């Protein structure tokens, strides 16, 4: 029952937001804020004629490639360095620097280096996903329960088996916590990078809409990006819930996903 209650409340929130938007367009004029109906119908028309899907496809491609290229080494690195805490210590200030660096400020540089095509967007996405995922995985590897490692060794597990059967599963929840944050951000970052310079993608649609004073186009493209971000978030949550069935349901993270 709680499920339906949550769903009903969400629809209610949605209706209120749309109503406020409608009121705003009456007061401020459709020229500035468009209308919900115009945006939604443009969204579906654009979806139907393939234009939106084509552009979203580019954005997804950038985010996906950047996500994989950024996340995979970020997950592997803390595991590889598990036995070398000194190296982790040495690289830590550089990692924190990389983490804190305003990556969008790098976008012009990447565009100079890689051109306005897909490569420069991937580079920006990588630079964001990598650092978030590195710290998420690192905290997972550090959260390891030493008693479980000892138990495994007593049972006769070698170093490789300890890594596979104890360290890895211990870190998976943290790896997912990192993905839950970084992958939706990957989409958003791809869109923002497209705004700076591109000839395709959802960010390009937003930019073109704004240049043509076509606010409806801007909103329809933003709606498309939002749908993508939500879809990625749900995909991560679903995969996590499937892989982490062993966790007690009192876990707040799991509770959050089980209500969705």
């Amino acid at each position, binding site marked *: 029952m709680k499920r339906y209650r949550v769903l009903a409340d969400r629809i209610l929130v949605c209706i209120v937001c749309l109503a406020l938007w409608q009121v705003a367009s009456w007061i401020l004029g459709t020229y500035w804020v468009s209308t919900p109906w115009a945006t939604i119908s443009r969204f579906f028309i654009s979806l139907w004629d393939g234009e939106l899907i084509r552009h979203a496809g580019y954005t997804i491609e950038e985010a996906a490639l950047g996500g994989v290229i950024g996340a995979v080494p970020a997950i592997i690195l803390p595991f590889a360095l598990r036995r070398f805490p000194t190296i982790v210590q040495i690289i830590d200030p550089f990692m924190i620097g990389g983490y804190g660096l305003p990556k969008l400020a790098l976008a012009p540089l990447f565009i100079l280096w890689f051109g306005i095509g897909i490569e420069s967007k991937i580079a920006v996405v990588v630079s964001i996903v990598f650092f978030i995922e590195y710290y998420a995985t690192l905290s997972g590897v550090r959260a390891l329960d030493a008693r*479980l490692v000892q138990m495994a060794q*007593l*049972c*006769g597990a070698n170093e490789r088996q300890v890594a596979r*059967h104890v360290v890895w599963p211990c870190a998976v929840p943290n790896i997912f916590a990192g993905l839950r944050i970084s992958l939706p951000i990957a989409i958003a970052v791809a869109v923002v990078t497209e705004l700076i310079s591109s000839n395709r993608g959802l960010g390009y649609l937003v930019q073109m809409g704004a240049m043509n004073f076509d606010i409806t186009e801007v909103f329809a493209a933003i709606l498309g990006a939002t749908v993508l971000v939500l879809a990625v978030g749900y995909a991560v949550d679903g995969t996590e819930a499937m892989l982490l069935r062993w966790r007690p349901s009192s876990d707040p993270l799991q509770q959050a996903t089980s209500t969705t």
Partner: protein
Amino acid sequence: MSTSPLLEVRNLAKRFASRQGREPAPWVIRDLSFSVRDGEFLTIIGPSGSGKSTLLNMIAQIDTATGGEILFGGDTIVVSDPKALKPGLDRRIGYVTQDDNLLPWRTTMDNVLFPLEVQGRLDDKTRAHAETLIKAVGLSGYEKYYPHELSGGMRKRTSLIRTLVYDPPVILMDEPFAAVDAQTRVQLQEDLLRLWEMGRKTIIFVTHDIAEAIALGDRTLVLTKQPTRIKAEHAIPFKRPRNVKDIFGLEGFAQVYEKIRAEIQ
């Protein structure tokens, strides 16, 4: 039952490393010697903080000793070099710790099969053995449950048979039943004795419960306060197989109990 000791501890000593500039850390254990015969159920009882867990950790080779030696089957085990420690001495020493240390992402069955899996000994025969053990401790029907879905007593049973499943010749137990309620404890003690009767492995069982030490053991060692050494030794004459529930009524129980109680204080 052979008379030569399977495991021998000679003049074992332990002090933890002190921080720089401080006085040397006090001795936790000093001049502690005892031996265990093959197939013997030895119980060790001592006041809390008497270094019981430290003693077992050293025998299990997950902690170093500061002095003395440990012999297994007549061979000296390296105990002072942390890099040379071999946890569990190549599966010859099993260790049931105070915490159950079950892997939370594995079901009851998969936790029990874990040692066999990492030892590369998982086959139909060993799997059937695991199922027998699960049945013997009343966990049938819970094979596919995760640890968080089990009660404390069930988790204890799971961790117990996880060690029994690969048949180490010596099993160390560190107050395994301390954290469960009294009724469950008696049940677990009975389970343990029944399983032990099946194979008669060597067991070193550490506890702070006098009744438990008497009920389970062939022999009981009483430890002193720190620095720990052996204060007294009692042969427990009660015949096997024993019934834990009846042990309090047996002749001689009260005498041994009172003696040990006086020695511990």
